[in-house]
């Protein structure tokens, strides 16, 4: 399946999806509420079979907080990028995909730790690197008060 067919296929899954051709990969923008259903369809459907999750990147866009998923199929070797954004900076909530790909467990904990993005239904959402009193360092409005100088 080439990129165009893939884009057509993803469009057919849900009419709300915004599918566009990025520079490298097919990019799908999806509202936070639909991430889990889309992800499980991409994982299960025989035409797509995205069984390998490369990485989950949390991004602070200034106003919005977003999550970017890089998915790959080990059978067809094609790749898709799923993006999702929310404007809620206080309580950004996305659906966890750790029940679909086990590796998402740590990636989501990392995103939570560094950007404060929460994942619903995550089995074990705790800070990963930093202690609980620390801010969220990868947010653009993060101020480092303890700058070490010498």
């Amino acid at each position, binding site marked *: 399946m080439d990129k165009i067919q893939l884009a057509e296929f993803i469009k057919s899954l849900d009419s709300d999806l915004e599918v566009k051709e990025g520079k490298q990969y097919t990019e799908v923008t999806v509202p936070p509420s639909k991430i889990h259903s889309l992800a499980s369809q991409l994982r299960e459907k025989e035409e797509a079979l995205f069984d390998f999750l*490369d990485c989950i990147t949390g991004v602070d866009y200034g106003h919005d907080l977003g999550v970017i998923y*890089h998915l790959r199929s080990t059978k067809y070797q094609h790749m898709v990028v799923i993006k999702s954004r929310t404007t809620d900076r206080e309580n950004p909530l996305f659906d966890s995909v750790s029940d679909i790909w086990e590796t998402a467990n740590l990636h989501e904990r990392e995103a939570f730790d560094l950007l404060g993005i929460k994942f619903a239904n995550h089995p074990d959402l705790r800070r990963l690197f930093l202690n609980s009193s620390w801010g969220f360092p990868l947010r653009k409005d993060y101020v480092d008060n303890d700058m070490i100088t010498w």
Partner: protein
Amino acid sequence: MEEKVKDIGTDEQQEYIINIGPQHPSTHGVMRLVVSLKGETVKNVEPHLGYIHRGIEKMCESLTYPQIIHLTDRMDYLAAHMNNEVVCLAVEKALEIEIPDRVKVIRTLMSELTRIQSHELFWASYGMDLGGQTCYFYGLRDREMVLDIFEETTGGRMIVSYNCPGGVMYDLHPNFQKRVKEFLKHFRKVLPEYDDILTNNVIFHERTVGIGPLSLKDAISYGITGPSGRASGFSCDVRKHEPYSAYDRVNFNEVLYTEGDAFHRYLARVEEMRESMNIIDQLIDNIPEGPYAVKMKPVIKLPEGEYYQRVETPRGELGVFIISDGNKTPYRVHFRTPNFANLSVLNHLVKGFKIADLISIFGSFDYVIPDIDR
């Protein structure tokens, strides 16, 4: 006395909890594993990270692209060259620069040398984890020759900082080819000794065969890449599936096994050293002439967009995801590091094995802790 009896609690709560780390001989760095035991049998393992978290992703947001490279050296310090390369490849792809053939071959040669020295250190430290301390010194002895090759050309031994966007920092040293051939000759001689000491050793077999088996389905779901994934039959070699640099012009085998236990993870790495030697053999005499770097603008600005690039490090697939807003510094950089993904499977694998097997399984994944923490 009475109180003490009360404290023991129910059978469920009776866990013998041991902290392995942050300072421990076999965690290979500062990492803490909280292990719940029943007798000597492991019930649960919980990794505690962050002891060496330096915020490299945050620091990258305030540095220009050439400056990022020296930080990536410090993630997976055993594969510093590949970490450099992945950023350079991403930048070059974004700028759509055509890279000279010489640079591609130099990068491939250096990558394979890096892979050999990293796997040598794995061999050395895995032997030491299992109690054969002599392995450690033999491994380091031969690794020293590779480090000398690095030092002669790049000036650095582990932290090479050899790549830059558009090429490499310096040309190859005139002695490079001679030294590499010397090393290969020596290494071909000592590799059978490695087998005699460890690979064929009956005690080593007892300690690793059948320990921590990982199925193909789990390997994909947990995102296990590199030799660890290939030991489970997961064909995930980026060099094969998405060739970069000069990998499209060399012949090599992707080492695949199906057992997925600690022994085959070990064996995959030892075999990869042989494959790497083959790749170097094919390239070392045909290094094309030409410039060692493209002339770049003094200030590199990436066009707005998102760029994802992956390479194969000795431990698995390393991905870099750069979001650029058109400035000279990236808007967001995310590293998909192989060790981070490989770590997630640890708890799944060790349950029900002995504490000695925990060390064996942990060692067989060849974790580099700074790469996990970043």
